[in-house]
């Protein structure tokens, strides 16, 4: 039989629960601005892009540009380098397998991030065991297509969005 006391008890439990739930929502709502303020701000997020004049990069050399405060590698590859990259498409030591063809728009121009996928250092050009890049921080070797071949990095150097405005200019971002 339901007594008066039971009803009071039940009502009190409901009030505890409701108060607790409302409190949790309030705390969460108050915490979110405090957490989200640390995310990149509007001006940082504002889409930025850079244009790169390719005529200044002779065949067989690379140039480094800053895009969104991070280095971007642009390499003007030689025929031999392209051949080497393509020959390695099925190499058994590819950690993050990807065909060279999928990493470039035009084979002679390799455009990719210059941030090591391990802990963010900048790999050195034309060093390492695969004729590509070598990261001095923890010893990751990238090949001439920017694919990770040996060392602790888990992924290839990422290719970001870019477009050819004409034969000698690209727009990154």
């Amino acid at each position, binding site marked *: 039989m339901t007594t008066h006391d039971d009803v009071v008890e039940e009502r009190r439990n409901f009030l505890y629960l409701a108060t607790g739930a409302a409190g949790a929502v309030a705390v969460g709502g108050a915490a979110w601005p405090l957490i989200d303020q640390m*995310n990149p701000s509007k001006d940082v997020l504002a889409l930025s892009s850079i244009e790169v004049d390719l005529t200044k990069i002779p065949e067989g050399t690379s140039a480094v540009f800053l895009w*969104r405060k991070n280095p971007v590698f642009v390499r003007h590859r030689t025929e031999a380098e392209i051949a080497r990259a393509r020959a390695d498409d099925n190499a058994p030591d590819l950690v993050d397998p990807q065909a060279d063809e999928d990493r470039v728009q035009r084979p002679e121009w390799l455009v990719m991030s210059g941030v090591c996928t391990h*802990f963010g250092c900048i790999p050195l050009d034309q060093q390492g065991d695969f004729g590509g890049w070598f990261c*001095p921080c923890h010893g990751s070797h990238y090949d001439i297509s920017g694919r990770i071949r040996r060392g*602790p990095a888990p992924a290839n150097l990422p290719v970001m969005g870019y477009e050819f405005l004409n034969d000698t200019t690209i727009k990154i971002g």
Partner: protein
Amino acid sequence: MASEHKFDPTNPTLKWVEDRLPLMGLIYNAIGAGFSAPRNLNYWWNFGVLAGFMLVVQIVTGIVLVMHYVPDVNLAFDSVQHIRRDVNYGWLMQAIHANGASMFFIVVYIHILRGFYFGSYKSPREVLWFLGIIIYLLMMATGFMGYVLPWGQMSFWGATVITNFFSAFDFIPFIGDGLVEWLWGGFAVDQPTLNRFFSLHYLLPFVLVGVVILHIWALHIPGSTNPLGIDANGPYDKVPFHPYYTAKDAFGLGVFVIFFAAFVFYIPDFLGHPDNYIKADRLKTPAHIVPEWYYLPFYAILRAIPDKLLGIVAMFASILIMFAMPWLDGSRIRSMRFRPLSKIFFWIFVINGLFLGYLGSISPDEILWFGFEAIVYAQISTLYYFAYFCVIMPVVSRMETTLPVPTSIAASVLEANRKG
């Protein structure tokens, strides 16, 4: 610990205040004559006080440095040089603060190893031990963020590498992907990163003060352990903290300050890295990135494991595993004085830790003895590091034949005195 002496001021003014706010009694019972400690504490028991001293030194010099430092990517580096060259006594404050971080870690490492050797983590002091590990973790975070503030090459690239540790967690749904950008406030270490590190570097030491108070509070429940590792029972086993240990700590402090001063006045840049006197350049990674010496063993563990995620996990685990020590060690005896086999493994552990530190300071592909690369030695050392906690400690502590333990502290001290 219940005190034998009660704070009872005779001065009427003091008594009037004490009746209304018993603050002096609190201090008297915490570190005065109202707190009694085992009579046989040796100099290894100085290092807790030294660590507390260093925390105060860092806070005081830090507050002064902030009066001149500018947390701006274009000005930070120059403002530190301004402090070192132009500000009155700035050279002294900066040298004390920069070397003070190293001194703080030295005394804390000795304090922690004291705890290992004398079984300070064992019942009933587990919570005291946990609070100590939390203090150590907070110190590491604070030290790291402080090192970023001068905005030199090592500051910048150290910040880049260490914040990138969290990119290993990108597999976690919802938060993993944006975690590093959230830490940075951008797409790379930049102004927002420097600003927030400055804010947190100022905040965390005061959080440390709070945890230190909890640490001391937890210490006062069972009281200090002692070199024999047996409980102090009754008045014959103990002496009042003041004047006995205030005097002993003051002497130790004097010796320590001489050591500290030798660095500050004669070799202020010895523990620093030359690359950090080059302004941060986001297009040029230094050829050889090394963290500050006090992180080197953990850096070696990180690099010993060729997988990014597992390396990070091992590095965090190498510290967090200390939380399990009260249960990994099954011995009924605290002090290693009576645990001959444990003692050997302990000292190997210490040497192994120093060796890991050395390995962390050199390139992993450097060729060492017998033609093996440094990474091979780092892997062996890392294996011993974890085996010490996961295999040696649980097994040896439960199997070894221990030596006879004295019946009381007083009996042991009197016996030693009788032998002269």
